[in-house]
């Protein structure tokens, strides 16, 4: 009974790790520096696991198709969408969005879709990456 774990321990030694070592094999001590290095091609990033089909990531907005009916605004549970009366288009603040895709379902012209992008962490809720318009 005492040593019943030994087979598992041995098997474990030759198995690949269960987790994906994203973004690098060892956590970089300075993430900003690491990202800069990646930008210059000095370091390499281990890519994240691929997202499945139908994943709910950053919203894509096809501005041309939008008719300004404001239905998405009415049914968005997070009040993440703002109406721009001048252009009759919408503006989505992803910092408030909960990625429920309800706006996609309700839009009559299907101009909203959920994308694959999910690395959206930012220190500024109003940064350009977090606003879709």
């Amino acid at each position, binding site marked *: 009974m005492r040593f019943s*774990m030994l087979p598992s321990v041995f098997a474990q030694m030759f198995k690949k790790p269960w987790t994906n070592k994203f973004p690098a094999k060892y956590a970089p001590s300075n993430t900003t520096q690491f990202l800069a290095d990646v930008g210059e091609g000095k370091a390499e990033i281990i890519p994240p696991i691929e997202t499945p089909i139908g994943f709910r990531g950053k919203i894509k907005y096809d501005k041309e198709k939008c008719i300004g009916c404001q239905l998405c605004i009415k049914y*968005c549970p*997070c009040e993440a969408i703002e109406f721009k009366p001048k252009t009759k288009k919408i503006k989505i603040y992803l910092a408030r969005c909960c990625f429920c895709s309800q706006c996609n379902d309700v839009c009559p012209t299907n101009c909203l879709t959920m994308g694959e992008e999910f690395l959206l962490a930012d220190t500024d809720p109003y940064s350009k990456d977090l606003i879709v318009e």
Partner: protein
Amino acid sequence: MKQETTTKTSYHIPVGPIHPALKEPVYFEFEISGERIVDVNVKLGHVHRGVEWASRKRNPIQVLYLAERICGICSFCHPAAFTLAVETAADIQVPERAEYLRVIQGELERITSHILWAGVAAHEIGFDTVLYFTWQIREKALDLTEYLTGNRVTKGIMTIGGIRRDITPDMLPRIKKDLNFFKDNFEKLRHIFLDDKTIKMRSQGAGILTKKDALKLCAVGPTTRASGVKKDVRVDTSYFAYGDLDIDYITPDVLTGEVNGDVYDRIIQRLLEVKQSIGLIEQCIDQMPAGDIVSEPKIPKLMNQLKKVNGEGVGRHEAPRGEVIHYVKFDGHSENPYTWKVRAPTYNNILPWIPMLKGEQIADIPIVAASTDPCMSCTNRVAIVNDNKRYELTKEQLHSLSVEKTRRVLK
């Protein structure tokens, strides 16, 4: 934990009430004599989030996502019970296929939740390898959830009058593969939990809830079924597609032939339920009829229909932790609910802690409390007031006490 000698034989340990991880903030006061718990007192209702009030400013579609956020682990159960309530109030017929899809989502959530619980329970008695093992299984369950719904935790899959995403034939191989993975690993998990000496020593005879107490205190879900009470909303009211499926009450005597109502029984109970859930998903996949998945795809039209509703509805759903009840009332003027009331299962399972904990040791608090599967958080911070000197027992200290006890019983 140091203690000074006083003339008083017992002292009090207040537990809670607030911790960020708490789903339902709760306050316990333990009366302790030496290592034994003499008495327990529970106070509820410390933080009121106003979720129900917030619903009055939102239309039912928005409330679905609000309901989802009552609890992260039960993120299907709350919208499910809410939808059932709205559908009763508005007399909406749900297509049959959607009913089956709802069962699949509900049971997948039960698997995820029970596996998570198994890991936490093992962690509480200091068995961390099992925690990592269960997390591995749970990760697969979450991946499957993501594949079926698009999100990992807050699924956003329920809608009034149906369900938002279909399961197409090309998705079935992946689902079947994952179900087989669960089955294989379930056997391993069963072996660890049911045959391991340490787990038996810590859980058998600990935190007993008698059938009488379970009935008297209205315990729900696995907590009450582990005490031998046959109570399960899925069987009792056969909502969704449960009426067409082969499902029966599960009590621990199915496996062991007797009901003790202790922590060990609650472990058996949950493991048996995981197995039952896997079976139910398989049945659904085999029996699912073709057809629509939502009764009214045009949401504005649905809202107009709800606007005219003047009435009330009650929705009951068997969440992983027990019966969740939602009550909804519409006034006929606006589509926003006039009132909405939620009764989550942990609420019923808090009072049974009193008979469970009485007579146990301090080191048993974590595992006994965890055995009812609350969002294990009350033990996160314990302050001991002893002779007007106040010192705190953190979650870590309480945890290490529990781990020490495991080592002691092993010797």
